[in-house]
C-alpha cells in the first residue's frame, strides 16, 4: 500500500454514531459542568482551613525563630540596621513592639506612645553582643517628651518615663540617672545604668563595688534636639557593670572641670541570684500560660540552685 492510499484512508476515517454522541454531549455537559464546579468549590472549602492553618503555623515558627533565637535576633537586628532603624535620628528598631508596651507612671495602664513617632537619640554597645537605644517620643496625653531605653536584640524595654518638667534635665547638677536596672534570666543576665548629662558636664565615672566600670557617652545630633523641640541639649551615658549576681553598691559621678559635680549612689541593687530564686515562684504561676516564659523561668530558677517543682535547693554537684 502506498503512502497516498494510506493517507486517504486516514483522512476518510469516521467515528461511529457521531451525531448521537453529540446530542448526548449537549445534554450531559451542563450537568458535568455543575458537578465539576461543585467539586472544585468543595476542594477549595476543604483546602482553605488547611491552608490557613499551614500559613499560621509557618508564621508562628518564623516569629518564634525571629523573636526567641539568637540567629533570629541577629537577622532582625541586621535588617533593622539595613533599613536605618536604630540609628540616631532614625526610628527605633523596636518600633512595633514599643507602642503596645509603654506604660508611663503618670498614665498607668495607658500606652502614651501609641500613634506617636519615636526617634533614637543615642545608641551604643550593650553586653551580650547587643546594643542599646535611647528613644524619645512625645506623650499622646500631655505632649511631654518621653524616654525609653531598649535593648532590641533581647527584645527588651528596660525603662520608660515621661518628663515632668518641660524637656529639661530634672537635676541642677547636670546628672540625671534614668535607670539602673537589669535582667536576671539565664543567658540574658545583665545590669545597666543609663542616664543623661548636661553639655557642660565633661563625663561620668561609674564604680561598682569600688571597681571602675567602662562608661560610654553618646552625643545626640544637635539638629535632632531642635527638630524635636527640646529646650536643653544633653549627652546620654551608659554603663554595664559585671559581677552583678550578688548585688553591691553602684556609684555614678558627673565630672565638670575635673571635679565631681553630681553623685548618685545605689546600694540596694537588684540581687540577680535572688531574682533567680524569685523566678521559681514566677515559673509556678506561669504554668500553662506560656511555654517559653515558663521554660525560661524554670531554667533561671534551676540556675539559681532551686528546684522549680519543689522550691527546695538543688543538690550540689
Amino acid at each position, binding site marked *: 500500500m502506498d503512502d497516498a492510499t*494510506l493517507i486517504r484512508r486516514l483522512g476518510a476515517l469516521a467515528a461511529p454514531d457521531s451525531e448521537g454522541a453529540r446530542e448526548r454531549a449537549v445534554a450531559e455537559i*451542563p450537568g458535568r459542568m455543575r458537578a465539576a464546579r461543585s467539586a472544585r468549590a468543595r476542594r477549595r472549602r476543604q483546602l482553605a482551613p488547611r491552608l490557613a492553618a499551614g500559613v499560621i503555623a509557618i508564621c508562628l515558627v518564623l516569629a518564634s525563630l525571629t523573636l526567641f533565637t539568637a540567629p533570629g535576633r541577629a537577622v532582625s537586628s541586621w535588617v533593622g540596621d539595613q533599613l536605618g532603624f536604630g540609628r540616631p535620628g532614625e526610628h527605633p528598631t523596636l518600633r512595633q513592639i514599643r507602642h503596645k508596651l509603654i506604660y508611663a507612671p503618670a498614665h498607668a495602664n495607658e500606652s502614651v506612645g501609641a500613634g506617636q513617632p519615636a526617634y533614637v537619640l543615642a545608641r551604643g554597645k550593650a553586653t551580650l553582643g547587643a546594643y542599646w537605644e535611647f528613644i524619645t517620643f512625645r506623650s499622646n496625653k500631655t505632649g511631654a517628651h518621653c524616654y525609653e531605653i531598649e535593648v532590641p536584640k533581647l527584645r527588651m524595654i528596660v525603662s520608660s518615663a515621661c518628663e515632668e518638667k518641660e524637656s529639661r534635665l530634672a537635676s541642677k547638677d547636670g546628672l540625671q540617672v534614668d535607670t539602673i536596672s537589669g535582667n536576671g534570666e539565664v543567658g540574658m543576665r545583665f545590669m545597666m545604668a543609663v542616664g543623661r548629662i548636661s553639655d557642660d558636664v565633661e563625663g561620668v565615672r561609674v564604680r561598682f563595688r569600688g571597681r571602675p566600670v567602662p562608661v560610654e557617652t553618646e552625643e545626640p545630633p544637635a539638629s535632632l534636639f531642635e527638630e524635636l523641640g527640646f529646650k536643653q541639649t544633653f549627652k546620654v551615658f551608659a554603663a554595664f557593670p559585671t559581677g552583678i549576681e550578688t548585688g553591691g553598691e553602684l556609684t555614678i559621678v558627673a565630672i565638670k572641670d575635673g571635679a565631681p559635680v553630681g553623685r548618685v549612689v545605689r546600694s540596694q541593687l537588684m540581687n540577680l541570684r535572688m531574682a533567680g530564686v524569685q523566678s521559681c515562684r514566677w515559673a509556678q504561676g506561669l504554668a500553662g500560660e506560656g511555654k517559653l516564659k515558663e521554660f525560661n523561668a524554670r531554667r533561671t530558677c534551676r540556675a539559681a540552685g532551686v528546684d522549680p517543682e519543689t522550691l527546695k535547693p538543688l543538690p550540689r554537684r
Partner: protein
Amino acid sequence: MGETGEMERAGVPAGGRERSDHDLLRAARGGSARASEELVARHWDRAYRIAFAILGDPYLAEDVTQEAMVSMLANIGRFDLRRPFAPWLHRIVSNRALDWARARARREEIPRLVAPPVADAGSDPALIEALGALAPERRAVVVLRHVAGYGTNEIARMLGLRRGTVGSRLRRGLDELRSELEGGIDG
C-alpha cells in the same frame, strides 16, 4: 418558528449570519449557556473523531471528548481570543486521549488495542485495529496529521514536541501502520 430554533441551535441567529467561534466564546465567557452549547455542538464531530482515532474505542472516545469539552468550558477565560479556537480544543482532546492511551498501555489492560465490534468500529475497522497497534505517542501524531489535518508545526505546539520529533514519529508511524495493514486482515 421551529426553523428559527434549528438555525439558532446550529449557531445561526435569526438574522441569518452565523456567529463566529470568537463571538460564541465571548458569550460563553459572559455566562451564556446557549453559547457554550453551540460551541460543543459545532466542534463535537472533529474532536470526537480525533479521540476515537487515538483510542479506537467509541465509548471511551465519547467520554474523553466530553471531559475535554468540560475542561474547555471551565478554562474558557484563559483562552487567548487572538488565536484560533479549534487547535486549542483539539490540543485538549488529543492530550486527554493520549493520557488515557498511555494509562491503558501502562496497566496492560489490553496489550494491543483491540478493535471494537464491527458496528462500533467506525468506517474502517482494519485501520482502527492497525492504529491501535502503534505506540500511543506515534498514534497521536499520525492522527493529528492525517485525520485532523494539522501541519507539523502545529502538532509540535499541541503536543509540546520538537518539530523533528513530530516528523520522525510521523514517518515511523506511517511505516508501522502500513506494515500492520499489509500483514493484517486487510493485507
